[in-house]
């Protein structure tokens, strides 16, 4: 079995839940349509060229990552900032805890970051009694609800405004409202105090710009700008793959990111942060750190083909395009990343043996690759991972029956007469009463009718036709 029964059950429940199905399908449809409008040839004639450029820049950067990491570090330090390398979530946490302890910080604010979701940073900090408050509206709701993000760019997409009202009522003192505008104002009021109180602001990074030693962050709410400038210390936590060589490369990536993610031409705010406040400047943090995290990424770098998984700029377009994500939603994927990109990076970060079903949760329709702004060949990587899963299972002695069936199939494909005979026998068996209740046929029959094989196969009909000529 590729999947644990409880995982199968959860997926069945999600698919059978009309409320979540409607919310999921319509929310992803909206994002999908908005994207299609702004990347259409009339709106952006150079779209395909931009994708090719983005792909080339990422390929080049990852092939020379050591050089760019050094350049980035040197430039950050030249501006008075500091670069910290972390092998995993534990090391990221240790660094933040250590700094908080030294500076006597009791509370910190955070802007949206999938990288910190990946390492469960909030839970790790809370465990050490350091409060971390999410300030992106969606993430704030998710944090109050003790939930996890459902979608890379729309973390609370599965919650209705009534759900949000329930969460606020339970956790805050404000009077209940189901109006999204008023709910946003409640969050804003509550968060404003946190911004002023926080000793550290933690952000992610959309891009690390090597030639400028800068962190580039895009957002729509202004909370990332506050997070990175109001508290006296700013720590950006980023995967090493977020690197791009030059500031001018942003001209390619910024055009693609907002369009692919939310269908915007640009996000409302684009921040370019390159160090602590300098003499004579009115704002900005006194201390600036960039934590460069590995957490399995260098293992991917070693594989020339699958390395492209690291090109991802986390726009979420593949989720909205994926017919499987649109049915099973975000929470059925293990780890922080859901959808097609999650199905290829999670198994590579954590090893293929842990959730071997992930690369198989795809009809290989290719919709993800079609919308990917950096042209990651997701279906190809899924196929490669499937191969690895099957090799791993063979080595453990798992999946014996299926493997033997395919070995038999492979053996027969080279023996046309036996292949035709097997077809004839198989067809007769499939026509027998009760055949639809066995093996894969029963799985098929659980949701649709089983087709009956023809009484005479094509090859038999053709032979008769040729004889009668």
């Amino acid at each position: 079995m590729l999947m644990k029964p409880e995982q199968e059950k959860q997926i069945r429940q999600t698919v059978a839940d009309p409320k979540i199905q409607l919310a999921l399908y319509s929310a992803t449809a909206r994002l999908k349509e908005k994207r299609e409008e702004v990347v259409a040839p009339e709106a952006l004639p150079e779209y395909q060229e931009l994708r090719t450029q983005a792909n080339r820049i990422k390929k080049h950067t990852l092939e020379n990552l050591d050089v760019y990491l050094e350049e980035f570090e040197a430039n950050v330090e030249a501006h008075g900032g500091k670069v910290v390398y972390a092998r995993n979530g534990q090391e990221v946490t240790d660094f933040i805890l250590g700094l908080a302890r030294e500076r006597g910080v009791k509370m910190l604010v955070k802007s949206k970051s999938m990288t910190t979701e990946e390492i469960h940073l909030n839970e790790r900090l809370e465990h050490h009694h350091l409060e971390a408050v999410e300030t992106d509206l969606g993430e704030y709701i998710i944090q109050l609800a003790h939930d996890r993000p459902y979608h890379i760019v729309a973390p609370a997409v599965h919650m209705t405004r009534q759900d949000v009202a329930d969460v606020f009522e339970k956790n805050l003192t404000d009077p209940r409202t189901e109006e999204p505008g008023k709910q946003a104002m409640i969050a804003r009021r509550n968060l404003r105090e946190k911004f002023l109180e926080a000793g550290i602001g933690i952000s992610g990074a959309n891009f690390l710009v090597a030639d400028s030693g800068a962190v580039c962050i895009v957002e729509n709410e202004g909370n990332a700008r506050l997070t990175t400038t109001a508290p006296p210390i700013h720590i950006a936590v980023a995967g090493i793959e977020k690197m791009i060589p030059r500031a001018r490369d942003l001209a390619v990536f910024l055009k693609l990111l907002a369009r692919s993610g939310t269908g915007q031409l640009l996000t409302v705010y684009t921040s370019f942060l390159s160090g602590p406040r300098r003499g004579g400047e009115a704002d900005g943090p006194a201390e600036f750190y960039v934590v460069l995290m590995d957490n399995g990424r260098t293992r991917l770098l070693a594989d020339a083909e699958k390395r492209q998984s690291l090109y991802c700029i986390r726009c979420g377009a593949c989720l909205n395009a994926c017919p499987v994500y649109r049915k099973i939603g975000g929470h059925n994927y293990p780890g922080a990343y859901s959808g097609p990109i999650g199905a290829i990076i999670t198994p590579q970060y954590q090893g293929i043996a842990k959730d071997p079903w992930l690369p198989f949760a795809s009809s290989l329709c290719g919709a993800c690759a079609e919308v990917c702004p950096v042209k990651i060949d997701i279906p190809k990587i899924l196929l490669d991972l499937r191969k690895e899963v099957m090799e791993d299972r063979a080595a453990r002695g798992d999946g014996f029956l299926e493997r033997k069936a395919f070995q038999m199939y492979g053996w027969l494909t080279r023996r046309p007469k036996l292949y035709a005979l097997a077809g004839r026998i198989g067809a007769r068996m499939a026509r027998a009463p009760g055949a639809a209740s066995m093996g894969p046929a029963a799985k098929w029959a659980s949701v649709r009718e089983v087709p009956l094989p023809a009484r005479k196969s094509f090859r038999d009909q053709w032979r008769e036709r040729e004889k009668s000529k």
Partner: protein
Amino acid sequence: MPARVSIFVTCVVDQLFPRVGMAMAEVLERAGYEVEFREDQTCCGQPAFNTGYREDARKAAGHFIRVFRDAEFIVVPSGSCASMVSHHFLDLFPKDSSHYEEAEYLAPRVIEFSRFLTDVAKVEDVGARFEGIVTYHDSCHALRELRIKEGPRRLLRKVRGLELREMSAAEECCGFGGTFSVKFPEVSGAMARTKLESILATGASTVVSIDSSCLMQLQGVFTRAGAPLKTMHLAEVLASR
């Protein structure tokens, strides 16, 4: 002497929908081609390839290459199987191997049926008549790997008595996906039901595609749902008079 084409009849067509293979041969003959069916053909290897069994897929691919290496054109009633040969055989063999070279040589000559008509035979009107409202389902591998989008629609528009209506979700996957359909039956079924809603909204009575496996999936869900819809392969429509 008419040009000769070889046909590759996919497993699904051979066993479940032989009428599709017969219809394809008929349309090709009507377009002036001599059709041959090489009896020692078996499978393209896609079931094994997509499920992660490369070694078994390589056996099928090697056999395919041996059977068809000297054929001028190999016409296939499936975008998915055609793409397996023209795109993914290259993933199966190491770059410097003789099989890789042969796969490269074979790739441009393995052509999906509708594309053969529009791009090689250069016919759009095959003299067919079919009374009814029809909607076309873009099968994923034909659309995204072979870039087949307009050809089948042009062929359908030339069929007398046929009205073609577009569904909103034409490009969305039917949910088949080979072994995906039995590894994740609930998800697969739900995907097909989304498609069904989009098809019903067009008022069409028949769904046409160039891949029988998509149609097998859709027909199974239509029948289960009691929807009064029929599925037909493009070849069957084009063979109708």
